[in-house]
């Protein structure tokens, strides 16, 4: 039995991979969301600020305007526990900069070139993510 969500996942995944391929083959850049954002935040990527800004504008506006225009019932279903949201945001921000990548950089772009660093990072963030769900959802029940 095939869940339609899996098909949408595969289609969306192919779009994500095509975006990463486009950014690599045309712009010559690695499509890592945390690196693109982080380089603007700490100014380490200031020299390519326009390219970074344009990428983020597309990332923000295209899905946003699509949802607005179609009136699709988009939901993030984010937890209402704002302390958990703040803690999670801080962890994601610090962690991705220390590790130099997130799901798109290490996961999509790293694994696809058989990068050892990308694979090690992916194993550790998956393990930590699984443990976080066990601890915060099942044990503590805060999210």
């Amino acid at each position, binding site marked *: 039995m095939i869940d339609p969500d899996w098909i949408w996942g*595969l289609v969306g995944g192919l779009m994500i*991979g095509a975006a990463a391929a486009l950014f690599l083959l045309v*712009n010559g850049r690695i499509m890592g969301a945390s690196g693109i*954002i982080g380089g603007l935040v700490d100014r380490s990527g200031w020299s390519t600020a326009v390219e970074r800004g344009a990428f983020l504008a597309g990332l923000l506006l295209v899905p946003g305007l699509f949802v607005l225009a179609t009136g699709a019932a988009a939901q993030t279903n*984010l*937890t209402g526990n704002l302390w958990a949201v703040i803690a999670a945001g801080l962890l994601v921000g610090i*962690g991705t900069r220390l590790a130099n990548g997130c799901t798109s950089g290490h996961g999509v772009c790293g694994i*696809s070139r058989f990068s050892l660093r990308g694979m*090690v990072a992916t194993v550790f963030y998956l393990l930590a993510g699984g443990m976080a769900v066990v601890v915060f959802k099942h044990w503590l029940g805060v999210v």
Partner: protein
Amino acid sequence: MRALFAFLAGGLFGAGLYVSGMTDTTKVQGWLDVFGAWDPTLAFVLGGAILPMALAWNVTTRRARAALGTEFPGRPAPRIGHNLVVGSVLFGAGWGLAGLCPGPAVASLFWGGTGGLVFLVAMLAGMLAAPPVRNRIDRLATL
């Protein structure tokens, strides 16, 4: 030109994140919830994304430069440092706690409400805080 294609890549990335369900935190937490109601959708997303990107990396072995003239990014040294591991664990913990990583956090901003905005601001603050945290970890690691 660089900005135009960066915008297109970002837009396709965001559309793919939305279509695949990765802007829905319950899909992400469902994937990480191995001991609960496990949702395998994310495996289809990651698999679908790696496929076109693997082909793109293959193209880079036969060409020196991207279409717009930039040299392709080289391979970073295959060193598994403590920052890669510590950072990935912190990132994974935050990812599991809220169900958002950097790409979807930006892509869902239009419909993510206050919580989505709070997550993004906290993530940016975490990215700003990362360099001093990195220095501290480096000092600890050399003790």
